[in-house]
């Protein structure tokens, strides 16, 4: 039986996470990143990989300084940011009311659900070439792609949030004489807020993707344009700097929405 016992302890350790102190996993994570960077730095120097294709952390660091100093970085960033902000704001303005309508009206839902679901599932990015034909190669086509990427996750999640609102709460409100408008503003909106924000969070990712894809496809300026330029010039270090900047932007924005989402979720007793 002693064999069984030692096995049992192992299961314990794996299945129940509180058996590890927090510091252990953090240490391992940090170590894992450090080793990755070291390997990346050393491998080209040992000739294990061709540094021309992989660059090195030290080179990327230096390239980052160059990019900020001399590459007109703010100009490109401003263009990409404008595309993102405009497309995303438009998407927000359209999707939340539309999602609310779909969440509260059965007929609207039955009518609009099939095309919406198809567009939610399908990669809206394939509409980019059409957008370029309609709107040209400058800002408007990118704004359209961001808009198309961001709108559907918000619609779908707003709709789901409204539909999942507690029927008992609504009944209780009605019993106190609340009318439809009261129910909507006092119950449906607050209780679906976490779900709406989840849609917004997903939409951020798709919006950033829209900007990058749009600019990679055809553009005269913007961070995606810079990516393409340095890609074809084999300046991997600068390419990585721009890719990292985009990642950091996406990560920061997603984290902010998640923070808001968690805060809103905590209002509600679970």
């Amino acid at each position: 039986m002693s064999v069984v016992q030692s096995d049992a302890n192992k299961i314990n350790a794996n299945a129940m996470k509180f058996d590890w102190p927090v510091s252990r996993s953090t240490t391992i994570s940090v170590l894992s990143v450090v080793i990755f960077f070291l390997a990346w730095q050393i491998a080209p120097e040992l000739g294990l990989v061709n540094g021309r294709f992989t660059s090195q952390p030290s080179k990327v660091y230096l390239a980052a300084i160059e990019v900020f100093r001399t590459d007109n970085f703010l100009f490109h960033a401003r263009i990409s940011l404008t595309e993102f902000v405009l497309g995303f704001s438009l998407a927000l303005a359209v999707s939340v009311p539309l999602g609310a309508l779909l969440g509260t009206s059965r007929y609207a839902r039955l009518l609009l659900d099939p095309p919406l679901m198809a567009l939610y599932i399908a990669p809206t990015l394939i509409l980019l070439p059409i957008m370029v034909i309609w709107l040209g190669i400058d800002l408007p086509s990118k704004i359209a792609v961001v808009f198309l990427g961001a709108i559907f996750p918000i619609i779908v999640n707003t709709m789901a949030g409204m539909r999942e609102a507690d029927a008992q709460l609504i009944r209780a409100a009605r019993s106190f004489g609340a009318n439809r408008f009261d129910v909507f503003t006092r119950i449906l909106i607050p209780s679906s807020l976490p779900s709406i924000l989840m849609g917004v969070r997903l939409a951020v990712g798709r919006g950033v993707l829209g900007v990058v894809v749009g600019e990679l496809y055809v553009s005269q300026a913007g961070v995606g344009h810079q990516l393409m330029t340095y890609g074809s010039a084999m300046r991997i270090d600068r390419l990585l700097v721009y890719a990292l900047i985009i990642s950091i932007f996406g990560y920061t924005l997603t984290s902010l929405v998640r923070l808001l989402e968690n805060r809103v979720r905590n209002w509600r007793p679970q």
Partner: protein
Amino acid sequence: MMLDFYRRNEAIILGTLSLASIGVVWQFVVDAGIVNPFFISTPSEVFAEASIQLESGKLYKNIAASMYSFVLALGLATIVGIFLGVLAGWFRDVESILEPFIWFKYSAPTIAFYPLFVAWLGYGTPTIVAIAFLFALTPIYANTLSGIKNVDRDLVRAARSFGARPLDVFLQVALPGSVPIIVAGLRLGVGRALTGVVVAELFGASAGLGYSIAYHAQLLETSKMMVSIVVIVLLGVVLTQLLTWLEKKTDSWRVH
């Protein structure tokens, strides 16, 4: 009688009606001269164009090219995603090792690394597969991880009470219990792999649905683009529905 039939099939009837009226309005705005067909084509022209492409075998060739990359990418993502997810779900240290990279993957738009892959693998199928693979990997990994990690503790305890060894617990409790959530991850992966394939094809390929869109866009041939767009939307819906069906099937034992 009629009303009864309508009530039972209301969702399907209204849904079909809605899709049909989109087609009608689309045709109408062009026929009435409100919108220039150069911008949006018309359903009848798209249909005619689709028949031509079907007959010449061009449509088939493009679908086959895209599906080849898609299957390869999704297959790889499934194998790697489940393998890493299982390891990370079972061994906490493996999860710690992978976590920072997964974190990064979540926030980084994979497509930003497209030029890097072109530098490594050239334009064409390898780059397309690599991008689509990375697109599909995250949800498959994440779902497998959470399925294995959140194994039902009551079941583990029951298994242990009968002397189950760690491998027994893994094979008989953790793995079967995770199947539905892993399939849900696959469903998300399907949509993302498809996105990855067609987007990467937009930028550089010699065949495929995404390539066809980009190619005809340069010639400003809207009807021909629309054929590929419609096919991609249909593929997305059909593939996702397939996985939704599979998900329900594997989930049937769950107490709802």
